[in-house]
């Protein structure tokens, strides 16, 4: 069987349908199968990424109908990088969550595992699809899984968070539908390449209204400022692997969709100012809220929003360097924020307390986990020599190339806020008054492997960013190259 992008989606789907059956045969099937699927996805995406970077974008035709007419999956260098990232992160998060809720047996775990797996599959779908309506379907897949996962815990305020997410998510999907419909009426097509090709002919009024609707809906998913009320609740109430996945999988897909709309469907110049402004506001408000948080996971959630804001800024700047920085930032954010959520949840797990105050002196009890958390915190703030530095630096460089001094100063001022609260937490973990209760829940070996691999990545990418720089450069170049995208998709041989 030839390896193709559709495997990435078909495999999880098949597995999702299969898991309820397998679970009847073997108790822990629900735990194991997603791992197998993710491993498969990881290898497939590795092969595909290599292929894409060797011989250009892959356009996968579905149901035998060539692009403008059928649905198609497009794997450009840009999406390839993100596919790789999502596959990898999904696998790592699965690994981390392997022993998750081992006290629970059967059904619940199965639901959890299916939803978690499908969230990754949906995100992959968003990244891969070349069809606007298909993207909507995948957005809904991720949305529903995310809502269900948010409300997964019964003993907390999960349902409340889930409801908020649901409300905003539904409104977002309504606007997405309206946007898609408007575009469809004007261009008579749902294929992104064809839309992109026909878009210049569309009357400005409708075009902009459609753009607003699309931006609103995708902005909700990508945690854009006034639309992100769901985010802190959802992040903080979801199970920890899910929180990690929100940052590492869902966020990646959302920001990708935003970029795809901004860069391919529309002209970058149209959304540039908007993305920069909203990105900055997102970042500003998120970090301002984060610094006053008393709850660890909520703080991390706001910090995630801040990072998404920075990514939006980078996409808004839109030069090659900025996109490079944005991609790097997304990768860093996925890796580092996952690490933070993973380690943070072990704190919470051990303390039974989400408040920051409870973290005092936790390093005595969980030395290794604390070390990893500190590493992650230093990295996400952007201290060299960790990977977080390079992405931030590149984005700033891009802003500097355009001499956007106020923006640079703004970003850095917000970073100061970010740094403050992260280092406060480090201070608490290591230096606040100690309590000498032994750790009740040591991390499982799988979780340790997962967290360590992320930490190693942070350091490796920090010391040797050139490892992925080549990929990222080509990916960002390709995102800018709208015509090639259209040509590749529409004129398949």
């Amino acid at each position, binding site marked *: 069987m030839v390896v193709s992008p559709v495997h990435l989606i078909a495999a999880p789907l098949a597995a999702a349908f299969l898991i309820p059956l397998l679970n009847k045969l073997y108790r822990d099937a629900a735990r194991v199968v997603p791992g197998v699927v993710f491993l498969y996805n990881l290898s497939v995406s590795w092969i595909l990424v290599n292929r894409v970077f060797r011989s250009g974008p892959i356009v996968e035709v579905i*149901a*035998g109908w060539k692009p403008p007419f059928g649905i198609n999956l497009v794997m450009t260098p840009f999406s390839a990088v993100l596919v790789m990232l999502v596959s990898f992160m999904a696998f790592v998060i699965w690994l981390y969550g392997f022993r998750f809720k081992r006290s629970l047996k059967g*059904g619940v775990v199965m*639901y959890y595992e299916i*939803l978690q797996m499908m969230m990754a599959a949906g995100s992959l779908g968003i990244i891969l699809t070349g069809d606007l*309506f298909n993207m909507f379907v*995948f957005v809904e897949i991720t949305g529903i899984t995310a809502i269900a996962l948010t409300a997964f815990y019964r003993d907390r305020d999960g349902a409340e968070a889930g409801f908020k997410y649901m409300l905003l998510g539904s409104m977002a999907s309504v606007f997405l539908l309206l946007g898609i419909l408007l575009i469809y009426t004007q261009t008579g097509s749902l294929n992104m390449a064809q839309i992109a090709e026909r878009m210049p002919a569309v009357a400005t009024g409708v075009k902009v209204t459609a753009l607003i609707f699309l931006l609103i809906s995708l902005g909700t998913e990508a945690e854009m400022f006034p639309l992100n009320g769901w985010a802190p609740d959802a992040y903080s109430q979801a199970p920890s692997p899910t929180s990690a996945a929100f940052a590492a999988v869902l966020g990646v897909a959302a920001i990708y969709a935003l970029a795809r709309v901004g860069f391919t469907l529309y002209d970058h110049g149209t959304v540039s100012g908007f993305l920069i402004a909203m990105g900055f506001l997102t970042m500003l408000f998120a970090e301002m809220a984060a610094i006053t948080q008393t709850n660890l996971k909520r703080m991390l959630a706001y910090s995630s929003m801040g990072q998404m804001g920075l990514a939006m800024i980078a996409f808004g700047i839109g030069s090659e360097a900025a996109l490079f920085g944005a991609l790097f930032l997304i990768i860093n954010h996925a890796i580092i924020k996952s690490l933070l959520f993973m380690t943070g949840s072990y704190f919470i797990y051990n303390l039974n307390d989400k408040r920051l105050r409870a973290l005092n002196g936790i390093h005595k009890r969980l030395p290794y986990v604390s070390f990893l958390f500190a590493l992650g915190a230093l990295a996400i703030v952007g201290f060299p020599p960790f990977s977080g530095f390079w992405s931030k630096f590149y984005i700033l460089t891009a802003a500097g190339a355009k001499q956007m001094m106020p923006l640079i100063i703004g970003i850095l001022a917000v970073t100061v806020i970010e740094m403050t609260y992260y280092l406060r937490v480090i201070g608490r973990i290591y230096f606040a008054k100690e309590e000498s209760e032994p750790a009740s829940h040591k991390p499982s070996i799988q979780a340790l492997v997962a967290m360590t691999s992320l930490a190693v990545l942070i350091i490796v990418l920090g010391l040797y960013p050139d490892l992925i720089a080549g990929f990222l450069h080509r990916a960002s170049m390709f995102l800018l190259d709208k015509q090639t995208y259209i040509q590749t998709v529409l004129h398949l041989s």
Partner: protein
Amino acid sequence: MIKRSFVVFLLLVLGVAVYEAFRQAPFGQNRIGDVENPQSVSAFYLKHSPETLHTANSVTAIVVNFRGFDTLGEVTVLFLAATGLASILYRRKEEEEAAEKGHLPQRIQLPSSVLVRTGAKILFPLILMLGIYVFVHGHLTPGGGFQGGAIIATGFLLMFITYKRFNVNHNVLIWLESLSGLAFVLTGVYGLISYGSFLQNTGWTGRLNDLISGGLIPLIYIFIGIKVGTELTNVLDTLLHTKPRRNE
């Protein structure tokens, strides 16, 4: 009051904007274009639905074949909704016991009348039949897997609300649900293996307006019908009887 007026104002602005935007696509205007030489997607579908796929219902052709991937996603959404529902409404044993003791509000259980019970008993097979008919003929007539599935689920709903002790066999539901979903995916994979494209239809598509026509389309719609029917039933069951499922 101020808030409401403000909301009304906002909504009016929004409404006007949406309306104005859609006015750009005037109602009833023909935007399909020339079907024989298709420029728009719709025209292409209208052309190839009868010519290539030999599927009478072009909506079905679009849903199952042209845009079959959407439908796969749609089925997945439904499946995930059912799963999510189950995970959200899953109740622990102790909670269940508490509920039985009356600590948690329970469904109001009024016995239904004889008339209803008898009527339901008669209607139920008919409804099932109708549902099956709808999805089997999805490629010929209006309707299809989703509609048929919904009809089937309605039948079950009727039984659920009529007979409070009516139970469906969950194992069967799960098997059907999973297998039909899997079959859908496998059909897609079959296309991938045989023709190099996921969900690609077979070369042989029969004759327009025959029951057995359209290649894999009716087959897939049947899977969808079964899956939707079982799934919706499952959802209803979960919503009505929010108790731990037996396999836990």
